[in-house]
């Protein structure tokens, strides 16, 4: 993995390598070099399989982190490429031409995070939400509790307990709460 | 009083000189003189013709110098000469007329050459002197060379040149032959030589004969002639083909008389090779004039065969050879003149003719004459020829003649199909001087047809009422369709009313279907607007053929009727939008079948009738159909085989079925039921007649009837199986017809009482429900604009009457009680109880349920399921199409309740032939040896149970909410579009997986391979003709050598 990183580093301006396990590592790539890096990995380094494409909302930094996880079947190792993009523009180049499956991931990301991938097939269509009418639900500034309370009727009388306290009361009635 | 025949020659020669004397600028006058001379010559020869025809006078010798031969040239004028002279002079006259523009442009010399040409041709016919013959040949060659140059085609020059080269070869041979002949006999007179016989100067005679034969352009020594045909002016090509070839043939006949009987095989050999090869070579042609050229060669070959067979033709010789020759000449002249109207030289360019229905009629007349179809002379001639050949046992020759004729019909009708169906950008203008020759040929054709009909000594087809009625519609073409339709219905009904007492019950059933059945289908034709040109003559010819078939008691009448209905139905089928290739395969298969029938009849006639010894005037062999029964052993099974295959071609038995689906499916809405519901029954009638008269036959230990049983069963199975995989509704019905005919064939071949009854039941039922289904599907196709079933769906509410018709039709067809199909099944089961062979039943058992599959598909994918967007506003089919369907529904229910109305009498009638196993018709129950059946009781019981339950459901379910087509449970989703919700395409996919191996298109491939083979043969032959004059001369040399060697060998 280190050698691979060294080889890649010579070609592209990469960030630090984060090694999760012996056969799983992540590296940050500038958005402009993503396509070249992916192509290189796919065609020269044997990372032929796009395992997943997902996103993390770094609300505080104003960035979305896209993770392209690739798998090398022969070496049985995975390499994740992280790309940071601006949260306010939230647009990224589509890679559906490299892996057709990417189109599906991109549709999901567009629906759930509001990240656009211009040119990706059927990107405009609904993916799993039907008739969603609020900000994309996986963005961290989306308040899911508030939305649920506003949108869906509630049955009055629902009580929420802290599980630990509740179970303690159930099992050891009369005792004080722990640590008090 | 007639004028001396010498004046013909004198006029031609004189006029030619006269034009030569005229001033260069007086072309108009010269042309008038030319026409006048030709008209005078025609008139003289016509006068002679009338004289001979009317008085039956003996031929007259005309001595030129006042002394008899050998001291002077003698001419002879007889019936044949007069007829030929008339033909030649008229052809010359009309050719001049047709070429008028060109002649006027080229000036008087061209006219003089034309006059010389015609005069020389006349001389060739008249002269009895060998050297004189040579002189006339030389004149013809020179004139031809000159006239070829009239064409605008640059190739004409080289063609004329090549012609001259080869002609010199021929002349040299001829001259050498004449010199040696004179040396041996001391006379130049043909008759004088003939008296002495050719034995003494065989080689010389061979040279003479071969030279004259070469003038006929036999295969392969004909490359130069083809170039002329192709590149010459069509007016001249007509003269060249019609007049020159006829004259040369006559000359050949004269010369042959010298050689005597031993030389006849040479003529036959040259003739048959030319006939077959010429037709094969014509097959791949795309150039119209070259095709006509090949056809001319072939036709000359056929006439040569007749000349070569004169030893057995006896007193029919003139009738046969003359019939072939005249119809060839008239037709070919007409077609060449027609080609002058067509701008392009591709066969498809003839589509331009469609702008002028009259020209189309002329075209079709020409083609029918060439193919030897009734009522033209070629038909009668071919009938006699084939019979006489069969009588002498010359079966190989007979076979080759029929084969060649079939190939010829194939390319001619393909051409006609192009003309009717293809598109052409050209327009046609009709100056009268060009139309008149064509019309003259047209009239001459029909007149000859009439004349030969009279001469034939049998019923003249042109005087037969039904055919006249049909042809009368040709004159009514200006009238609107509804009027003609009313007349047609009236005619058919009236015919039925007038004649129905004359028939036995079996024929009566066929008569009802052919006349009243046809009339009901004609009701549907009221939907057509406009004039519908061509429809009524064709349809009525077909119906005329069918009623004549029923009337026919002798073989000739039967065969003539058979040909008529074939032609009529061909024109009908050809009317469909996409039907061109299918109509072609229909006519080829049908004519092939017809030729087999002809051969069968001819062979039978040889055994049934003893030919009258030559001398006595009796019509050539024809016999009562019923006397087929008297045929003896070695011949009978072969006749049976030929006839059976012929009839089975019509019923589309498996192997011979490939023409049917396309022909029936592509035909027009009201034509499909006619050709399917009605026409197919003609084949069954033939089989009925055959089996009634001949019974069981076996060949090499194989029981032929048993073979038919198998064929019927396989046809039933495969027809049905192929039907279930069709996406096209009308194709499905067409394949189903194949299967149904298989059933009927099976029933007939059971050769027991009930088997025949079942076959008859199928005749009736199949007519009713197939006509009904074709009309119903046709109406739907008309409204939806498609025949693909998967594009339809849900039409039940919009077209309820069509739905009811289809529903009743499929219930009846699948044999589900209580409708009439069940009667057929019941009789079937009782019939097979008696059968000797059991294995074929297995196939029939299987094909029944399979029929159920395609029927369900038919009704489901059209009327049930999901209605499409674009069909939401469809209306019910037009009343005229629905009305006959409702009549059929009534008939079906009527027949279902009271089958005895029809079957009882037939049952009794069949007992004459097969007494065992008749049904018992007491009371309402029909009883057989094995079981019973009470249609009335079934109907009542079923109706009562049904109504009881229906009433109960109405009571408990009275509040049902009517919903619409997308209100279906769809796995909690909803349908997206009706197209994606309608399950219709590839309906029986699993069946294809399991049984698809049975429906591989083996038969189609087989016939395709045969067609390819013929085409390839033609193509290879075509490479002989590379346009090189030396090669052509070489061909001639080879021809001479081959003929010489084979003559020595004989």
């Amino acid at each position: 993995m280190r050698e691979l990183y060294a080889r890649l580093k010579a070609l592209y301006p990469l960030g630090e390598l984060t090694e999760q396990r012996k056969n799983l590592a992540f590296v940050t790539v500038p958005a402009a070099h993503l396509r070249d890096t992916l192509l290189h990995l796919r065609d020269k380094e044997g990372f032929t399989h796009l395992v997943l494409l997902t996103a993390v909302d770094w609300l505080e930094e104003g960035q979305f982190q896209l993770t392209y996880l690739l798998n090398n079947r022969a070496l049985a190792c995975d390499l994740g490429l992280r790309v940071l993009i601006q949260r306010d523009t939230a647009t990224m180049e589509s890679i559906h031409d490299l892996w057709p499956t990417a189109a599906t991931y991109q549709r999901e990301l567009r629906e759930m995070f509001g990240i656009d991938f211009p040119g990706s097939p059927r990107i405009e269509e609904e993916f799993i939400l039907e008739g969603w009418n609020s900000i994309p639900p996986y963005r961290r500034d989306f308040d899911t509790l508030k939305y649920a309370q506003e949108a869906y009727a509630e049955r009055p009388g629902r009580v929420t307990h802290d599980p630990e306290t509740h179970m303690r009361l159930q099992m050891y009635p009369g005792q004080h709460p722990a640590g008090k | 009083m007639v004028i001396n025949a010498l004046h013909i020659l004198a006029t031609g020669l004189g006029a030619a000189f006269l034009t030569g004397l005229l001033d260069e600028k007086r072309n108009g006058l010269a042309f008038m003189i030319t026409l006048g001379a030709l008209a005078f010559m025609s008139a003289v020869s016509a006068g002679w013709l009338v004289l001979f025809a009317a008085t039956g006078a003996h031929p007259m010798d005309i001595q030129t110098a006042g002394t008899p031969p050998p001291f002077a040239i003698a001419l002879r004028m007889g019936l044949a000469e007069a007829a030929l002279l008339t033909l030649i002079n008229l052809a010359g006259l009309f050719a001049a007329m047709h070429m008028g523009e060109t002649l006027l442009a080229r000036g008087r010399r061209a006219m003089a050459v034309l006059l010389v040409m015609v005069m020389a041709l006349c001389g060739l016919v008249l002269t009895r002197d060998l050297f004189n013959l040579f002189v006339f040949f030389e004149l013809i060659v020179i004139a031809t060379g000159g006239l070829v140059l009239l064409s605008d085609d640059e190739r004409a020059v080289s063609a004329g040149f090549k012609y001259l080269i080869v002609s010199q070869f021929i002349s040299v041979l001829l001259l050498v032959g004449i010199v040696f002949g004179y040396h041996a006999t001391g006379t130049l007179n043909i008759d004088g030589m003939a008296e002495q016989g050719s034995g003494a100067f065989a080689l010389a005679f061979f040279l003479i004969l071969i030279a004259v034969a070469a003038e006929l352009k036999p295969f392969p020594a004909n490359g130069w002639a083809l170039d002329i045909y192709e590149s010459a002016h069509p007016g001249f090509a007509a003269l060249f083909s019609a007049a020159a070839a006829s004259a040369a043939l006559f000359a050949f006949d004269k010369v042959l008389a010298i050689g005597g009987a031993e030389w006849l095989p040479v003529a036959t050999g040259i003739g048959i090779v030319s006939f077959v090869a010429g037709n094969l070579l014509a097959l791949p042609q795309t150039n119209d004039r070259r095709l006509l050229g090949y056809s001319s060669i072939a036709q000359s070959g056929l006439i040569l065969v007749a000349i070569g067979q004169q030893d057995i033709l006896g007193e029919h010789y003139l009738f046969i050879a003359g019939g072939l020759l005249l119809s060839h000449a008239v037709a070919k002249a007409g077609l060449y003149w027609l080609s002058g109207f067509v701008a392009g030289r591709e066969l498809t360019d003839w589509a331009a003719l469609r702008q002028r229905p009259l020209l189309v009629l002329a075209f079709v007349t020409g083609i029918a004459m060439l193919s030897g179809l009734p009522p033209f002379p070629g038909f009668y001639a071919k009938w006699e020829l084939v019979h006489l050949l069969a009588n002498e046992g010359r079966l190989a020759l007979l076979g080759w003649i029929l084969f060649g004729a079939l190939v010829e019909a194939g390319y001619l009708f393909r051409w006609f199909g192009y003309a009717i169906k293809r598109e052409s950008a050209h327009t046609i203008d009709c100056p009268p001087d060009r139309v008149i020759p064509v019309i003259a040929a047209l009239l001459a054709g029909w007149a000859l047809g009439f004349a030969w009909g009279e001469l034939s000594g049998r019923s003249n087809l042109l005087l037969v009422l039904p055919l006249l009625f049909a042809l009368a519609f040709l004159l009514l073409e200006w009238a609107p369709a509804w009027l003609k339709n009313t007349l047609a219905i009236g005619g058919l009904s009236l015919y039925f009313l007038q004649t129905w007492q004359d028939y036995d019950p079996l024929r009566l059933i066929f008569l009802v279907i052919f006349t009243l059945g046809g009339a009901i289908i004609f009701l549907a034709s009221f939907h057509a607007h406009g004039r519908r040109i061509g429809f009524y003559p064709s349809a009525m010819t077909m119906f005329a053929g069918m009623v004549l078939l029923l009337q026919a008691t002798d073989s000739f009448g039967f065969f003539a009727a058979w040909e008529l209905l074939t032609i009529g139905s061909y024109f009908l089928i050809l009317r469909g939008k996409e039907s061109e290739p299918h109509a072609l395969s229909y006519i080829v298969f049908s004519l092939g079948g017809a030729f087999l029938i002809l051969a069968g009849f001819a062979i039978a006639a040889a055994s049934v009738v003893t030919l009258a010894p030559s001398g006595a005037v009796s019509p050539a062999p024809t016999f009562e159909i019923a006397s087929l029964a008297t045929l003896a052993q070695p011949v009978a099974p072969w006749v049976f085989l030929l006839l059976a295959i012929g009839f089975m071609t019509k019923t589309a038995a498996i192997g011979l079925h490939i023409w049917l689906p396309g022909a029936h499916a592509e035909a027009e809405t009201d034509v499909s039921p006619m050709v399917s519901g009605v026409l197919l029954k003609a084949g069954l009638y033939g089989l009925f007649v055959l089996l009634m008269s001949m019974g069981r036959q076996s060949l090499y230990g194989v029981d032929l009837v048993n073979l038919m049983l198998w064929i019927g069963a396989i046809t039933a199975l495969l027809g049905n199986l192929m039907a279930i995989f069709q996406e096209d509704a009308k194709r499905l019905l067409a394949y189903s017809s194949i299967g149904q005919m298989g059933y009927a064939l099976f029933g007939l071949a059971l050769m027991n009482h009930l088997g025949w009854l079942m076959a008859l039941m199928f005749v009736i039922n199949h007519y009713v429900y197939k006509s009904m289904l074709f009309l119903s599907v046709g109406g739907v196709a008309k409204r939806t604009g498609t025949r693909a079933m998967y594009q339809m769906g849900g039409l039940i509410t919009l077209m309820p009457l069509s739905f009811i018709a289809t529903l009743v039709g499929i219930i009846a067809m699948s044999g589900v009680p209580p409708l009439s199909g069940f009667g057929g099944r019941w009789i079937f089961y009782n019939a097979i109880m008696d059968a000797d062979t059991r294995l074929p039943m297995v196939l029939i058992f299987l094909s029944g349920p399979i029929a159920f599959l395609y029927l369900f598909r038919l009704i489901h994918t059209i009327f049930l399921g999901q209605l499409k967007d674009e069909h939401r506003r469809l209306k019910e089919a037009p009343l005229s199409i629905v009305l006959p369907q409702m009549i059929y529904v009534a008939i079906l229910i009527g027949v279902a309740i009271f089958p005895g109305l029809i079957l009882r009498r037939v049952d009794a009638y069949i007992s004459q032939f097969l007494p065992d196993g008749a049904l018992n018709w007491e009371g309402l129950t029909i009883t057989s040896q094995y079981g019973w059946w009470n249609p009335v009781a079934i109907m009542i019981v079923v109706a009562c149970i049904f109504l009881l339950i229906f009433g109960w459901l109405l009571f408990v379910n009275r509040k049902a909410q009517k919903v619409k087509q997308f209100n279906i449970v769809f796995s909690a989703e909803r349908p997206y579009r009706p197209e994606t919700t309608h399950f219709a395409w590839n309906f029986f996919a699993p069946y294809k997986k399991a049984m698809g191996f049975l429906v591989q298109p083996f038969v189609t491939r087989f016939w395709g391979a045969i067609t390819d083979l013929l085409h390839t043969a033609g193509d290879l032959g075509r490479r002989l003709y590379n346009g090189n004059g030396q090669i052509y001369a070489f061909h001639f040399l080879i021809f001479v050598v081959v003929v010489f060697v084979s003559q020595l060998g004989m």
Partner: protein
Amino acid sequence: MDFDWMKIPYAFLTVFIVVNYGFLMGALIQKIGARAGRRHGIPIWQYYLDVIKNYGLRTSITHGVMFYLGPVFRLSGGVGLLLFMPVIYGSYMFSNFSFAGDLILALYFVFFGTLGMALGAGESGHPHAAIGVTRGLQQVSMAELPFAMAVFSVALQYQTLSITEIVAAQQGGMMNWTLFTNPIAVAAAMLAFLGSMMRPPFDVFIAPQEIPIGPPTEYHSSYLALMQTNRAIFPVAKIVIYMNLFFGGAGSWPELFVKVFFLYLFSAFVGVCFPRFRVEQSIRFFLVWAVPLGVLSIMVV
């Protein structure tokens, strides 16, 4: 026409007996099947309850006239089939309307209900209904073939098409049954029997999960009740044909009950033992196993 009007109440009686027997026997067979899976299975009267419930539903919908008539055709087919046969041998009372036709009538009347049902299901516009119908038709077309041959063989054997006479010929001891006098035909017919009883392995056309029960997928309420009634009558009527042709017929109702029960059990037994065939597989099965037997049977008879 001299018609014995008493035949009408007799016919009602026949139908009544057969409906009740059919319901109970169906449930019993279900229970036996359940026991094979170590369950108790449905109550014996469950089918009555289902039918009453379905009649008791308050709403229903209709897709059109044919849809409405489909179950009517279906039930008429079942009842008609039953009444066109002499159900009890030698009994005038239960010979019903067999004067209207012989064996052939019964054989062809089987299709009456099938056709009507197929059309009704077709008009619902549901693709699954059409798929189910086509599967059923394809399979039945091949399954019927050995049966038709067996019938032919039996008819040849006894030289008659009359059911009564065929039964009469089998009287006088078990060894006279066609089962023993013409075993090949019976074997062919019993394979065909499996194919027409809508049970595994030949029930892909009502595959409940794939094409929700195929043809009847849109039928409900009283339509369904009619069809359930038919489900009680039709198999019995069909088995009665088999019983008459091959198993000596029945001289009394108890004999009929027993024979029909065991024949029905045969198909149920095969059904619980074998998994489902696809359509082309079942076509091949009949073609390879049953058809040769049928051919043999008509060759040797």
